[in-house]
Each structure stands twice: as structure tokens, then as C-alpha cells.
């Protein structure tokens, strides 16, 4: 194959053209829009850094940013629960495949369908209230999704519930790659079952932990569907469920403040970049350790 041949470029052309049109061009446009007053229907007008100034002074933006950062808490919880579940389903038991499949169901059902079912679980007339009342925990129903303090935790719970089965499959594959000898050695050294997992499983799962940390935290930063359905498109009372992406959507497509929303998008990009740099550092450290 000669170096001058056009062949490699022909193979790459469709993908590169699509990426140029649907990723690179939009990034450049968003940067430009973020310095303009723009409502999609009328042409953008240059206003310099006014959108960013407005953003810094906008309490809703800071609230949304706080919510997105709080949302990152799902990552450590997901990692711990998924590893626990992987260890449980790694036992050789009859019918274990059926259980593994059952745990995976929430991951494939789609966030909108799941969100609707959860909305009704937590409805004033929902299953959660009637169960809690019949158990004597509550005396009268709580309006869960109208309770500002409850909206974000319920959305996070939903993300965790839907994610554990998915991520545990990754950890399960990792567990099955850990040599049996290590567990035998741990047993001979007098490790209890719990210690065995602490000193053999967890270190052995390092690559999977890094992978899940990256994937689930990036997903948490971009959460939208759950909030949209649980709060019925409102973002919750007093913006109690508004995240950065929800705020972006609301500004851009509901209020048609596309210029302002573009500034939000740039902030989102910066956060993601910082996050990715941290993640790459973590990955590098792992490579050194290996």
C-alpha cells in the first residue's frame, strides 16, 4: 500500500464528513452563538460576553450546576452496589442466569417508560404511599414529587436502580477474569469471605471500576430524561430538579434563548473537559501501576 494512495481517505470519508457536519461545525457554532443574542428564528446579533455575565449572576444556573454536581454522587453508589451484585450473581447456583437477566431489565427498558412508572410509584396516589401507610410508617400520603427536597434524590435513586444491573454485568466479567488461585491463597491466609472480596476482588476489578466511574459520571453530568419525566417537563417546584442539561434545554427550546443556552452548553463542555482530564490522569496512574 503506497502512502500516496487515496484509498484510506475514501474509507474514512463518510465518517469524517458526518462528524464534521454534526459535531465539529456545531461546536464552532455554539461557541459563536454564545456571544450573541439569538432566538433561532431571528439571526444572531453579537453582544460580546453578555451571556456569560448573565450566567454568572443567574441563581438558577448555580442551582442547576449544584444539582449536577450532587448528581455525581450516583457514581460511587453505583460502583459499590454493582460490585456487590456482581459478587452475588457470580455464585454457581441453579437458575442464576434467570436472575442475571431479571436484574438487567431496567437497563434496557428505556428512561421514558421507566420514568413514567416511577412517577406513578411516587404519586400521591401511588404504590409507595399506599405501602407506607399500610405499614404504619405514614399516616397520610406525601406528595413526593412536589416536595423540593425529594425530587433530586428520587431521580438519583431512579438512575441508580436502572444502572446497577447494567454495570454489574461489567463487574461480573471482571470477576470471572480474576484467577481462582488468588482466592485460594486468600483462604489459606485465613481471609473471611468479606476480606477475600476486599483484598482480591476489589483490586482485581480496578480497570472495570475506572471504566464505570468514567461512563457513569459522564452520564450523570448529562442527566435529562429522568428529570423531564419525573417533574412533568417543569424541572420541579422552585427548579428543585433542574440540572445543567435540563436548564440548557429549557432556555434553548422552551424559552428560545438560544444564545444564552449556548453559553450554558460551553460551560457544560468545560466541565466535561475538566472531568475527562481527571479521568485520563486516573487511567494513566492505573497504567503505571500495572
Amino acid at each position, binding site marked *: 500500500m503506497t502512502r500516496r494512495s487515496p484509498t484510506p481517505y475514501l*474509507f474514512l470519508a463518510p*465518517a469524517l464528513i458526518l462528524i464534521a457536519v454534526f459535531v465539529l461545525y456545531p*461546536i464552532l457554532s455554539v461557541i459563536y*452563538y454564545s456571544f450573541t443574542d439569538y432566538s433561532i428564528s431571528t439571526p444572531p446579533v453579537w453582544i460580546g460576553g453578555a451571556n456569560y455575565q448573565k450566567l454568572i449572576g443567574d441563581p438558577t444556573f448555580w442551582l442547576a450546576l449544584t444539582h449536577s454536581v450532587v448528581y455525581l454522587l450516583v457514581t460511587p453508589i453505583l460502583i459499590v452496589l454493582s460490585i456487590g451484585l456482581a459478587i452475588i450473581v457470580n455464585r454457581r447456583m441453579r437458575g442464576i442466569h434467570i436472575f442475571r437477566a431479571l436484574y*438487567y431489565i431496567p437497563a*434496557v427498558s428505556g428512561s421514558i417508560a421507566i420514568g413514567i412508572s416511577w412517577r406513578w410509584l411516587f404519586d400521591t396516589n401511588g404504590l409507595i404511599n399506599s405501602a407506607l401507610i399500610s405499614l404504619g410508617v405514614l399516616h397520610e400520603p406525601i406528595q413526593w414529587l412536589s416536595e423540593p427536597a425529594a425530587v433530586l434524590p428520587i431521580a438519583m435513586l431512579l438512575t441508580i436502580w436502572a444502572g446497577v444491573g447494567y454495570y454489574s454485568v461489567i463487574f461480573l466479567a471482571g470477576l470471572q477474569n480474576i484467577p481462582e488461585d488468588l482466592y485460594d491463597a486468600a483462604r489459606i491466609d485465613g481471609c473471611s469471605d468479606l476480606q477475600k472480596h476486599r483484598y482480591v476482588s476489589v483490586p482485581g476489578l480496578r480497570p472495570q471500576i475506572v*471504566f464505570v466511574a468514567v461512563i457513569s459520571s459522564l452520564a450523570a453530568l448529562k442527566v435529562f430524561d429522568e428529570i423531564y419525566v419525573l417533574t412533568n417537563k417543569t424541572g420541579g417546584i422552585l427548579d428543585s430538579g433542574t440540572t445543567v442539561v435540563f436548564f440548557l434545554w429549557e432556555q434553548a427550546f422552551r424559552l428560545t434563548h438560544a444564545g444564552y443556552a449556548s453559553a450554558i452548553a460551553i460551560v457544560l463542555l468545560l466541565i466535561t473537559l475538566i472531568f475527562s482530564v481527571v479521568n485520563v490522569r486516573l487511567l494513566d496512574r492505573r497504567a503505571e501501576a500495572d
Partner: protein
Amino acid sequence: MEIARAVELTADTRVASRGARPRRRLETTFWYIVLISISVVTVLPFAWMLLTSLKGPQDPIFSVPPQFIPAHPTLANYDKVLHTLPIVSFFRNSIVVAVSVTLLSVLVTALAAYPLSKMRFKGRDAIFYLLLGTLIVPVQLTYIPSYVLAVNVFHYYDTPLALILPNLASAFNIFLMRQAFKAVPNDLIEAARIDGAREIRIWWSVLLPIVRPSLATVAIFTFVTSWNDFLWPSLMLHTRDGMTLPVGLATLQGLFSSDFRSIAAGVTMTIVPILIFFIAFQRQFVRGLAGAVKG
């Protein structure tokens, strides 16, 4: 391997005293209780949806204690939803979009992955890092310009094309395919080149058949992602008959407001097909997820 373990197990039980057997049985029972409890947590919302969707008007949806099994089971709720919402069209649209995205995306990304994994050419590293960079970009960032493109340039607003074209060149899929191609021995490709095969022919008849499992993984994940995609389709689809399932489903709440039996019927109808799909391809799902980490 399996046999060795079985022998080991029988040897274990033979050596162990009689007291060990009830203990083991107790342990097994304990783990089954744990497994079943977890299943209750994962399946309960779905089971509750299904049962509620079958409830007749006399059956309470809210009662203390909660009533699970409908006393007057009926399919009337399904009938009502099917008459109010074009669920069949939603299905057809979702299938058209997900199948097109899957086939075209596999094609485009497998094409791009070949030179990136098996050819030397100017700019290869630059292109590779460019693709790597696009992985970080949150897709929501692109929605405002993509919306403008859809309305003003491509004029595909409110058509399936709007959901297909922007989702074809997934950098993630290119990486998975590149990884798969890298594992193919160079000798095979060299031999084909000596035989005078053209590159496109080598790609089609030598490489693609070898990496079929990876193609399947990429295809299934692309399909499920496209099937469940919501935010971008909700921006692009306006006419009700043109909506995909998640977008149509989201209108369900507004239409039936507090008629939970009908909402439950609508949700159940949309979840069942994807569950069947998942059960059919379960092995590929698991293998794909497990392999993604190594890549």
C-alpha cells in the same frame, strides 16, 4: 473443567461430615432469598404497571393496603390506548429509525475503522485524536446548531431522516471496530493483496466475516441506544403520527392525565418488545459489555 469441578464437589460432600449438608442447604436457601429479594426490587415497578394495566374500573389503583391482583381483569385499557394513540405508528417509526441507524452506522464506522487499524497514511494519528476528542463532547451541546441545520439547511425537521443522519458516525463504534480489526492477523490481508484483491473487497470478504461478533455487539448497542433515545427525537418530531415510541410515550401523561390504567397499558405495550429483543440477544449484550472495558 466443568467435570473436574463436579468431581471436586462430590469429593467435598463425601469428605464433609453429615452436619455440613444441612448447613450448605441453609446457605443456598439464604442466597436464593437474597436473589429473589433483589428481583422484587428490579421487577416490581414493571409488574405493578402490568397488573394495573389489566385493572377494570371497579379495581382500585390506590388503596390501603395496595391491591396488586386485579379482581376484574380487562383488556379495555389497551383498547382505549390503541384507539387514542397511534402506538402502531410509533412502533413502525421506532423500527425504521433504529434499523436504519444500526445498519448505516455499522457500515460507516466499519469503513472508517479499516484504515485506522490496518493502513499507514498521512494524518492518521491526527484523525485518530480528533475522533478521540469527539468522544468527550456532550451530545446535548450540538443540539442548538443541529436544530438550525435541520430546519434551515437540510429541511428534514419532523422526518425520520433527522433522527438518522446525525447519529451515524459514532466515534465510540469506530473505536470498537478498530479494536476488532487490529486483532485480525496482517498475513491474511497481505495474502489477499498479493492475490490482487482491491481494498474494499478485502474489507468486505476478509475482515468483516472475521469480526462478526464485534459487528453484532456494535449493532445491538446502537439499536438499543437509538430505540431509547429521547431528547433529540423530541426536538425533531412534531406530527404525532411521525413520533417514535419514547416521544409518543411522553405525550401519554398529558393525554390521559390521571387515568393511570391507560398509562400503564401504554407503557407495558412499549416495554414488552424491547424485553423480547433483550432476551433474544442477551448473550451478545453481556459479551459486548464485558468486552467494552478491554477496548
